[in-house]
């Protein structure tokens, strides 16, 4: 990573070129699980963005104090703290979302995007840059989730935000709202992101799967050759 990145490029990086879901292949579980409706997708995206920004800031602020050996447990504890805050806020103010997200809300703790960014970015950069990185990654995550939710809710149930959009004559493709549809839509979107990125003339890594391994918070332990392969 270059030392001198402009503030704007840190934010925009997360949108497409380093989009956490589509290009870094992090945080796939919530991407597939809760994108059956646009409402859930946006809620999940915002919750994760909140955690990303604050945990990035906190980790960046503490990066010189935390010994390298207990780095990962320390990061996870910080993240879990913010996730608990989000859980309590959502439970208090947006009950329907709390019901809909269920177990996936506490599971933000183990969302690899957050730990991945802590390891890849926040532990090496200043507080402001880390907050911006969290913001960019969070927006990228939210956008991908929303796109998935849009496709799956519109085509799978014929509705958007619970309001019927497609006329009754169009039979909704229920398969898209079910688990197999999640994998399928995600695969197609990922292929699209790769195409767009190539069109912009960006260098595309020959093996997209390697990116996933680099983003893995444990890549240091396995040196890119252990369990990840």
């Amino acid at each position, binding site marked *: 990573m270059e030392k001198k990145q402009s503030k704007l490029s840190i934010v925009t990086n997360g949108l497409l070129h380093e989009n956490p879901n589509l290009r870094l*292949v*992090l945080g*796939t*579980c*919530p991407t*597939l*699980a809760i994108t059956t409706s646009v409402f859930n997708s946006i809620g999940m995206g915002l919750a994760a963005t909140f955690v990303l920004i604050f945990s990035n800031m906190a980790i960046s602020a503490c990066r010189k104090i935390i010994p390298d050996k207990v780095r*990962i*447990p320390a990061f*996870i*504890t910080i993240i*879990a*703290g913010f*996730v*608990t805050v989000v*859980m*309590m806020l959502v439970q208090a103010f947006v009950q329907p979302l709390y019901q809909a997200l*269920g*177990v996936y809300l*506490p*599971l933000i*703790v*183990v*969302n*690899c995007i957050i*730990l991945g960014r802590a390891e890849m970015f926040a532990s090496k950069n200043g507080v402001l840059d880390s907050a911006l990185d969290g913001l960019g990654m969070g927006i990228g995550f939210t956008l991908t989730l929303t796109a998935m939710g849009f496709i799956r809710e519109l085509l799978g149930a014929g509705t958007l935000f619970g309001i019927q959009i497609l006329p009754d004559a169009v039979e909704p493709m229920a*398969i898209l709202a*079910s*688990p*197999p*549809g*999640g*994998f*399928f839509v*995600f*695969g*197609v979107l*990922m*292929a*699209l992101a*790769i*195409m767009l990125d*190539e069109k912009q003339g960006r260098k595309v890594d020959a*093996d*997209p*799967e390697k990116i*996933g*391994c680099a983003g*893995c*918070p*444990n890549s240091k*332990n*396995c040196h890119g050759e*252990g*369990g*990840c*392969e």
Partner: protein
Amino acid sequence: MAAKLAFIFFSMILTNNYVLVKFLGICPFLGVSKKLDSAVGMSAAVTFVMVVATLATWPVYTYLLEPNGLSYLQTIVFILIIAVLVQLLETVMKKFMPPLYRALGIYLPLITTNCTILGVTILNLDNGYNYLESIVCALGAGLGFMLSMVLFSGVRKRLEDAQPPKAFEGLPITLVAASIVSLSFTGFGGLVETIFGM
């Protein structure tokens, strides 16, 4: 009682499969399923940690957190327990069971951040399972994870020879294949309920 346990066990493997139906643990599912032996090793380690984590977290929640009105600390406490347990298991295995360590050791550090483990411990409590039911559920979830990993590693072997459009090469086509495997699991819907009359 036995029927309920069997029901939980088999529904965790087939109808509620964590990977293909509930979307937990997708990262190892995509990352480690390239070769059969690593798929088996990883899922054996996951099953083991799942059961041990459930053994530890259930009493902590029921006897420590809940009576004291601390249930909001669930997430933090559970993830710390899991992180410590994984570390402990690694150390104990390395010292006393070197062959097992050689087989499962490299997968252990990957497991702390695996959402199936935290997922199973939280879902057990959400579903109101008792201690025995929770353990059976964790075991079933682990074996279900293994089943999908093993099946998918077979699919991926075939996938290596396929020639998809350029943009689909690598992960996108793998996801589409996962979609089809997941489709086959939806065929189990209702099966377990019918057998055990639940």
